[in-house]
């Protein structure tokens, strides 16, 4: 913290910490979006090509003059990936408080613990004990179907007894309450003369946990909340649309929404099935798929432009790719003879060509053969996918609450 009596200015440094992909940059983006223009500077990101934070993201907030002092908060995020340990430590230097963004995903519990320990160690190297610094833990991604209950997260991760909040940073929920809480903990320290005084922990904010969640479907043991469903619709819309109006999805008709819910249910079933089988998407495989999508664009700028206009991130593409990869892996277990069924005989090709001859104009059979094969294959794949999801549904209990859509 800097108190500058010449400039009449107080400047605090607040760092978002946490494991990779837990939503630190998303938090900052939401703050940037929601804070009035005259209170914020530009957001700066030092990121890799894949849009992962490399060094830090930075957002200055200016609260204006308060009791004669211009008051500023400098918000930073650190890169989450384990291998950026040294840059993470650099950003932490001189921090007045930390927001630890934890991923509620049941599979991420170890990563959360590891990251919090890493924070503790890095602070120690600067001579700061973690319990002497204002720390707020944000349970993020509360909307995930496999999010752990807060009580379990508390037990496993919050050994500091730090203040906590709940959030769905991707939709903006809970982001500002978390920042407000962290800021007020830092300010409370200003009142105490000794900077090392322990922070008042467990000052829980009322928002947003009191909001009652509405569910659109139950799938076996998992529930799909309306907010998660809406987010899904929004992303699917952005992925498919040619329009630049990203809010268009709100115009979806009930029928369209029902179709989307169907596809989301398929997705959840797929995740449940792959989890039960211990199948995980291979990361390289996913990246290859994402890259092949990227190749549709002439340049990196064009891809960035495409994503930017739709407010999509590479992570959205990754999720889509992950689903495709998992389908590829699970489908072999559910439909064992799939390779055989995807084989197309020359007789079939010839028959298709004969019955669709009109559509091919005066092109010869040899000229169109490969495109015919492609068409038949696509239809066949679609049928197989339908059969695949039917099989998954047969052994599942699915409840849909139409009225909540």
């Amino acid at each position, binding site marked *: 913290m800097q108190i500058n009596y*010449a400039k009449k200015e107080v400047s605090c440094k607040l760092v978002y910490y946490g494991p990779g992909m837990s939503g630190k940059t998303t938090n900052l983006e939401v703050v940037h979006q929601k804070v009035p223009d005259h*209170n914020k500077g530009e957001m*700066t990101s030092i990121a890799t090509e894949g849009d992962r934070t490399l060094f830090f993201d930075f957002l*200055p907030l200016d609260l204006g003059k308060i009791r004669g002092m211009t*008051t500023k908060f*400098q918000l930073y995020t650190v890169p989450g990936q384990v291998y950026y340990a040294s840059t993470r430590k650099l950003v932490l230097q001189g921090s007045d408080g930390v927001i630890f963004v934890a991923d509620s995903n049941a599979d991420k519990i170890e990563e959360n613990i590891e990251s919090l320990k890493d924070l503790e160690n890095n602070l120690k190297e600067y001579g700061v004990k973690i319990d002497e610094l204002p720390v707020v833990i944000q349970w993020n991604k509360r909307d995930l179907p496999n999010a752990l209950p807060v009580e379990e997260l508390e037990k496993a991760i919050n050994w500091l007894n730090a203040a906590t909040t709940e959030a769905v940073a991707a939709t903006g929920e809970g982001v500002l309450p978390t920042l407000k809480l962290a800021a007020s903990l830092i300010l409370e320290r200003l009142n105490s*003369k000794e900077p090392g005084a322990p922070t008042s922990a467990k000052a829980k904010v009322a928002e947003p946990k009191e909001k009652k969640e509405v569910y659109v479907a139950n799938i076996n043991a998992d529930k799909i909340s309306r907010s998660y469903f809406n987010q899904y619709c929004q992303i699917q819309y952005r992925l498919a649309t040619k329009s630049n109006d990203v809010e268009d999805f709100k115009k979806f008709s009930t029928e369209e929404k029902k179709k989307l819910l169907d596809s989301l249910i398929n997705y959840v079933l797929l995740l449940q099935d792959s989890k039960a089988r211990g199948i995980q998407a291979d990361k390289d495989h996913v990246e290859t798929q994402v890259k092949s999508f990227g190749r549709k664009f002439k340049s990196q700028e064009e891809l960035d432009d495409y994503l930017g206009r739709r407010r999509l991130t590479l992570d959205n593409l990754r999720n889509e790719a992950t689903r495709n990869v998992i389908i590829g892996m699970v489908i072999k277990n559910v439909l064992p003879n799939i390779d055989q069924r995807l084989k197309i005989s020359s007789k079939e090709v010839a028959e298709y060509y004969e019955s669709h001859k009109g559509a091919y104009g005066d092109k010869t059979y040899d000229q169109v053969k490969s495109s015919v094969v492609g068409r038949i294959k696509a239809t066949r794949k679609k049928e197989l996918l339908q059969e695949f999801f039917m099989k998954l549904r047969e052994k599942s209990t699915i409840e849909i609450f139409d009225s909540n859509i």
Partner: protein
Amino acid sequence: MKDEKLRQRRLVYYKEDIDQIDKLLDEFIKLSGSVAIFLIDKDGHLVTQKGTAPSIHPETLSALVAGSFAATKEMARMLGESEFSVMFHQGKKENIHISLVGERAMTATVFDTQTTAGMVNLYSKELMTKLEVIFNIASKREAKEHSLQSGYSDSVKDKLEDMFKE
């Protein structure tokens, strides 16, 4: 020990120090022919600035300079140096010269074709020596009771509440 900790964690700059520093920075700009100079502490907070570089957002520059300085320090360590005291970024028209001031701060000087890197380097060495003297005296001075008006924290909280109304 407590005072030491306080100084380490809470940087307090008083008017008499900043006035002196500002004078030195003004003089430096004139002598070296630079466009602007920013004094930045190692945590990335801007302390003071002189000259005008309209395209630069001072807070963002401060964060980036402190960050890149910290990263350079890691490079220095690999070579067995404790840190590099000078960094220089050369552009087509404008350049940035970064120099370490003692343990706690650094300056970032923006200059263009009106002068040369050699001139900036020369005068900044002199400036560093003078700044270090001021910093040393300031750090040895008894920490004053900080005199933020009572109720400051609460007022900030109210302001936050207001700003973050959803």
